[in-house]
């Protein structure tokens, strides 16, 4: 084996330095938030907290435990994730199966497909959608958060492509045994697509958990806000300032450590599913690779 040249070694050092810098850049702002949440209130208010907590304590978290609106929003988000992901997955499975058939098997296949692609590429826009939701009487209800996005068209296409790769012999054997299409879908296709479904489901969960704007749009009463809408409202003051000098005083009026604790707790559910997400998302991208 040829030993590395000086130039190559120098390149290695540069590569490591840039990579570590990029990694630190991603990590440190989040670490700072965590440190603030565990710091002494006055130290946080005076901006003395860097990468480690100053006078470590859990006062902010103790205070947070008693914050009923925070936990109400937390539960609303959990409810949304559960209902929203269940609906998304059910519809994805049901639609991907007929669409994975060719035109000879399912004659209306291409009509449905074109409708879906059109719906994916073109939207009526925020205001007409808002009016539909409003006219259906869904304002201030959990359904306003899950039904408008009930059909994840992109995911349907992903799963459809996955279903296309399932050997036909499997299905034919079951059909000859007299199984219905529904039985074929839930007895054969569903079990072998579980890893793909897990990927899609995890992305769906994170998407529902992280969306803050539909909460703001469809909930009139702030007591119905899901968690991320609640979090966004913590720093909403900045979107209302009209004079630069106001920005200087903003930080001093809010309770920095408590807000930081709220933000940290709101990330925890994402961190809990993150290892699973990470295991799957590379394969998820692979099943999403463009083919038709």
């Amino acid at each position: 084996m040829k030993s590395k040249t000086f130039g190559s070694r120098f390149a290695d050092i540069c590569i490591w330095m840039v990579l570590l810098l990029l990694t630190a850049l991603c990590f440190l702002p989040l670490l700072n938030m965590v440190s603030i949440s565990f710091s002494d209130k006055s130290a946080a208010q005076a901006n003395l907290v860097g990468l480690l907590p100053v006078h470590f304590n859990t006062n902010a978290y103790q205070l947070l435990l008693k914050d009923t609106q925070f936990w109400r929003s937390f539960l609303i988000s959990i409810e949304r994730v559960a209902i929203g992901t269940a609906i998304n997955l059910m519809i994805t499975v049901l639609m991907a199966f007929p669409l994975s058939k060719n035109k000879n098997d399912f004659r209306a296949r291409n009509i449905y497909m074109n409708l879906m692609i059109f719906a994916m590429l073109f939207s009526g826009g925020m205001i007409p959608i808002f009016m539909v939701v409003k006219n259906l009487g869904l304002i201030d209800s959990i359904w306003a958060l899950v039904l408008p996005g009930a059909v994840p068209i992109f995911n349907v296409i992903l799963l459809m492509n996955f279903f296309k790769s399932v050997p036909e012999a499997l299905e034919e054997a079951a059909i000859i045994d007299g199984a219905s299409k529904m039985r074929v879908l839930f007895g054969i296709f569903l079990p072998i697509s579980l890893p793909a479904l897990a990927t899609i489901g995890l992305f769906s969960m994170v998407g529902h958990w992280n969306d803050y704007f539909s909460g703001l749009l469809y909930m009139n009463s702030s007591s119905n806000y899901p968690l991320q809408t609640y979090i966004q409202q913590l720093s909403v003051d900045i979107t209302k300032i009209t004079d630069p000098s106001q920005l200087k005083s903003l930080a001093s009026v809010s309770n920095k450590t408590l807000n930081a604790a709220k933000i940290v707790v709101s990330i925890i559910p994402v961190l809990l599913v993150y290892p699973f997400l990470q295991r799957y998302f590379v394969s998820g991208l692979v099943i999403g690779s463009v083919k038709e």
Partner: protein
Amino acid sequence: MKRKNKAGQLEYHLMMSPGIIFLIVFSFVPMFGILMAFQDYVPAKGIFGSAWVGLDNFKYMLEIPDSMKILRNTVVIALGKIIFGTIVPIIFALLLNEIRLKWAKKSIQTIVYLPNFLSWAVVAAVVINIFDYHGPVNQFLQFMGKDPTLFLASNNWFRQIIIGTDVWKGFGYGAIVYLAALTGIDPGLYEASSIDGASRFKQLIHITLPGILPTIMLISALNLGNILNAGFDQIFALYNPIVYETGDVIDTYVYRVGLLGQQYSFATAVGLLKSVVSLTLLLSANQLSIKLVKMRIF
């Protein structure tokens, strides 16, 4: 020979029906709401009772000075995001690809992918904290002997911060597709070239970059459809009236004027124009990518 029995067809239609009903209600019915763009819509009268005004809303759009400003902001921010959101992930992927230590590679990836999975509500709070007047960035500037800046209330900085934080959030995740493309390059090419005495830099230029070029072109074509998407969730959580001059984009404008200002017809017209232009761009991008890389976007 396939059996085409009626019962089978009916079952397929039944499977499609729940999703199709939701699509009709929440996608296709709102498309009829687009008619508002050609009306002077009054909520009390509804779509069937409001007066038709033809293209007046679109003419009004051309007359007000806001339009140019908002279009410019949208395109500048979106283009910045597209350009830096493509270059940074490529560079990151190329650098990461040079690393042989498996565990280090894994750890770096774990950390760098994370911001992509955080909500803009959370990231906005982090950004506000970092760029606070007394926050870390300004503390660093003061340490370097510079004056602190009110970054988020500065028209000189707002766009850069929007583009920068968007790249920050997405570059790791955006690199995955390039890393996948890199693993697809034939290792034999590297072995052969190093026997011929090619340096690592030469290998990068002649093997690695050409190897991921189709992916780069596909992603770029895909991005063409995003030229009017400046990122509503992000800007909405970070902007304020002082930076409307540089940060107000089509989507935020539609929300403010339409839903808060209740000029439903006008805002719908603005939104419609955006949808039509985006759709046209995306369709052209699809044609382009079929031609260039023999791949369809959809």
